Structure formats: structure tokens, C-alpha cells
């Protein structure tokens, strides 16, 4: 009977696209902001 696809950790009713925070086919939830590489101004790379 297949499975309940709403329990795979994807917010299928989200008005935004999902792919931008899609973490992995094996992950039960989306990426967190600190997981997403972001091209910030080089000055922000303070370390």
C-alpha cells in the first residue's frame, strides 16, 4: 500500500520550494540555516 509520504520529513504544503533546503535523501528533516553554505561578503569570514 506504499507509505504515508507526508511522514518523510518534507513540508509538502510549503509555499516555498523545498529543494533549497533539501538536506539529503536519507535525512528526516530539511537543512538548518547553519548547514547551508552561503556566499557571504568575504569580510564576513572573520576567522
Amino acid at each position: 500500500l506504499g507509505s504515508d509520504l507526508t511522514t518523510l520529513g518534507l513540508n509538502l504544503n510549503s509555499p516555498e520550494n523545498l529543494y533549497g533546503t533539501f538536506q539529503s535523501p536519507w535525512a528526516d528533516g530539511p537543512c538548518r540555516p547553519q548547514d547551508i553554505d552561503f556566499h557571504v561578503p568575504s569580510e564576513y569570514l572573520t576567522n
Partner: protein
Amino acid sequence: FDDPPGLQDKTEYLLREWVNMYHSPAGGRDSTKAFSAFVNQMHQQGILKTDDLITRFFRICTELCVKLCYHALSEQAHTATLTRSKCFHTLDAFVRLIALLVKHSGDAANSVTKINLLNKVLGIVAGVLLHDHEKRGSDFQQLPYHRIFIMLLLELNAPEHVLETINFQVMTAFCNAFHVLRPSKAPGFVYSWLELISHRIFIARMLATMPQQKQGWPMYAQLLIDIFKFVTPFLRNADLSKHVSLLYKGTLRLLLVLLHDFPEFLCDYHYGFCDVIPPNCIQMRNLILSAFPRNMRLPDPFTPNLKVDMLSDITQPPRILTNFAAMIQPVTFKKELDSYIKTRSPVTFLSELRGHLQVSHEPGQRYNVPLMNALVLYVGSQAIAYIHSKGSTPSMNTITHSSHMDIFQNLAVDLDTEGRYLFLNAVANQLRYPNSHTHYFSCTLLYLFAEANSEAIQEQITRVLLERLIVNRPHPWGLLITFIELIRNPSFKFWGHDFVHCAPEIEKLFDTVARSCM
């Protein structure tokens, strides 16, 4: 083979040098200072002298990185975090070197040298992976290769002008490399492979941000077909092993993202996908068939007295980007088919039809499924065109008494249970969102039910629809309206059949569906 003497040591020395320069603060944020110094060293060492030497240099570097990773992974004392940082310390530096060489090879305007170098390196990494995969068998580890591919993907997708101008060729190079490493060729790499093609940057580039947006779609479709082909033999047996169900669930997650974000992509390539998805993989196939264009509003299938043929979209042909006509082989068979459609001759065509479709006597593998699917869609498309040429539209009246319907009725009657199941599936695979194919094939299925000369055919039509309806959501719109019409329209005398009452839970199920329709 035949590496020049000393090249191995020279390469090892250079790689170590580079890793230190990459990690030293003096190397600069994006290693440009370190890079210009290092390129001089490569020149002095003669590495850049010939294409062959550059190739050997990259191969030896890749092998050194891989060896280092296997060594780190074998040290039990290390925690997973420590192992990874040891591996990535070298791998990320090596990737940065590749990215800088790609970006700075040839002059800025000359993208050919850049792309040639990228293809070369991706090919070398793929080659080392396949060799390692074969040599180590179940001890194969995907970690180093996964890291090289993903970090190179991130590096070459940074928002820099020189990269933006060559992004299509860069993504094409990655698609080619991932196709070379498709799961049926490197099954030990399959989990990384699916992770790579699911990565948000990869999806964004292939499906959303390509200049001519749909340029990436055919390549991405091919990669999805690669994973479907791989899982097919393992999904045929309903009880999946833990690892297969992990891969299947991961594939479902990716498809859900595509259904949510790029439904038009699934609409355009549904045919190619359903051609390779095993017929018993019902929910995954429903997921693909449920996609509909975002700008389309689907009327509630349970609307009483819904007039499907009055919907504006119902006469529009869907985009199908697979050349299914070309899949009807051999050519002689295609010629006979076209001749029969046009002139109903040769008269022997129908009686020989099954022979063309049957490929073995092995139960469960008797028929050529892709040929069956292509035949059904081709004949249906021809029928729609013929009906339109007569100035009318598909309906229960206009689809009958035609060479096209002769072929479908012959298939319904002449095939055995297995063959008819595949035939009915090929028809049901066209029941999607409101379009001319959905309408035509919905009428065809209902007509075959009404005109069936045996209750077995009617039962099988019901089974094919029912097995698609009782699985968890999503359900294609065309499937729902067909089933509702079947149980609601008294002319099909649906409720009078014994098989409707064959078991209490079946009868209860039909009742439930019927009640939600009324």
C-alpha cells in the same frame, strides 16, 4: 601503467606542498596567492608540460587522496568526526587546486580548455572509483569520491563571472560523470550517487537556474532513469530488504521534492520514467503521474455531474519528450502497424500482434514492456489525431469502430493475464491531469470494460484501477475520474458483477469510494 620514473614521488611531494599552502593563512582566502606560487612549482617540476603528464598527475593525486582516506577510515581509534576532518583536510585542498586550475586554464574567454580539463579530471576520478570499486568489492568506501565530487560541484558553482559563463558545460560534465558512475555500474556508490544528484545546488542548477531553463531537464531525467533502472529488480519482490527500502525511501523523498517544486519536469518525462519503473511500484508511479502544471486548476474529481469533456484543458495534448514512436521496433513491425492503422491491412496484423510483444515464456517476464508501452501510446496518439482530423474530440462515441480500437480490443481479448495486465497498465499510465491523452485513454478503458466479451477482462480492468487507488496518496486526477465514472455510470453495470462482491472488505472498499463520490 608506465608512469615515468619518479613521477609518483614528485606528485606526492607537490600534493603535500599544496595542502600546506592551502591551509596556511598566507594562502589567502580563496588560495589565489598560494595557487600562483604553486603553479610555478608545477611548471618547474615539468608537470604541466604535456597532457599525458597532467593526466597522470591528477590520477596519482586522486589515488593518494583515496589511500589516505582508507588509512584514516581503518584507524578504529578515530571518531567519525576526526576521520572526516583528516580526510577532508587533504581532499578539500585537492579540490580547490582542481577548481583553480579549471578556472585559470586557458585565457578567460576560452572556455574550451577549462571544460576539457574538468571533463578530464572528472573522468579520472570516475576511473579511479570504478577501478577501486572492482578491486575492493564490499570493502569499497564512497567517502573520498563523494567529497571530491560534491566539493568540486560547490566550488564550480560559486557565484563568479568566469564560472557563470561556463556553467552549462560544467553541469553537463558532472552529469556525464554521474551517468558513467550510475548505480548499475557502481552499486557500492549508489547512496552517495543519489545524494549527489539530490543536492540542492545540483537540483537548482539542473532544473531551476540554467539560462535556458529546460536545458538541464533531459540530462537530469536520464539520471533519474538510471536510479529507476537500478532499483527495478530489487523492487519486484514486494518485501524489500532494509537497504533497498532505504534507497527506495530516499528516491521517494527526491521525487516528492520534484513533485512539489518542478511538477512540469515530471509531466514532461513521465513516459520515460514509467517505462522503467516496475509495474508493481505503484505509489512511486502514482507520484509521477500525479504531477500537473502549476498554472492548472484541477476540478475536484468528486464534483457531482463533472463534465470532463467541457474542461478547457482536456483537448490540449500533453508534452511528452520521449520519442516513443522510435521505440516501436523492428521497423517492419512499425510499418505494418502504420499500414493497419491507415487501411486495416494486412488483416493478419492483429493475429500476429501478440507474437511481436511476447519475448519469452518465463512467467513474469513474457512481454517486452517498453514495446507495449510505446505501442499503446503511439496508437492512442494516432487515434486522437484521427478523431481531431474528423473535427470532433475523443468521447465514448468517437473512439469506437476504428482501426485503433480494433488494436486495443484485440490486445484486451488475445493476451493472457500477464500480457493484459501490462497492456492495461500502459493505458492507465496515461491517466494524469486534464489533457487529451487522459481523456482518450480514460474513455478507452471504460469502453473496453463496457464491450468486454468476458468478465475476466472487466475484473482485470477493475484490479488495475483499484491497485492504484488503494495505495497511499497521491493519486492522479485522471485515475480518480475514470474510476468514479466506472462505478457511478449505470451503463457499465459495475455493481452487478460478482467480483465486486467477491470479499466483504472489497465490497466495503467499493462502497466507501462510492459514498465519497455521491
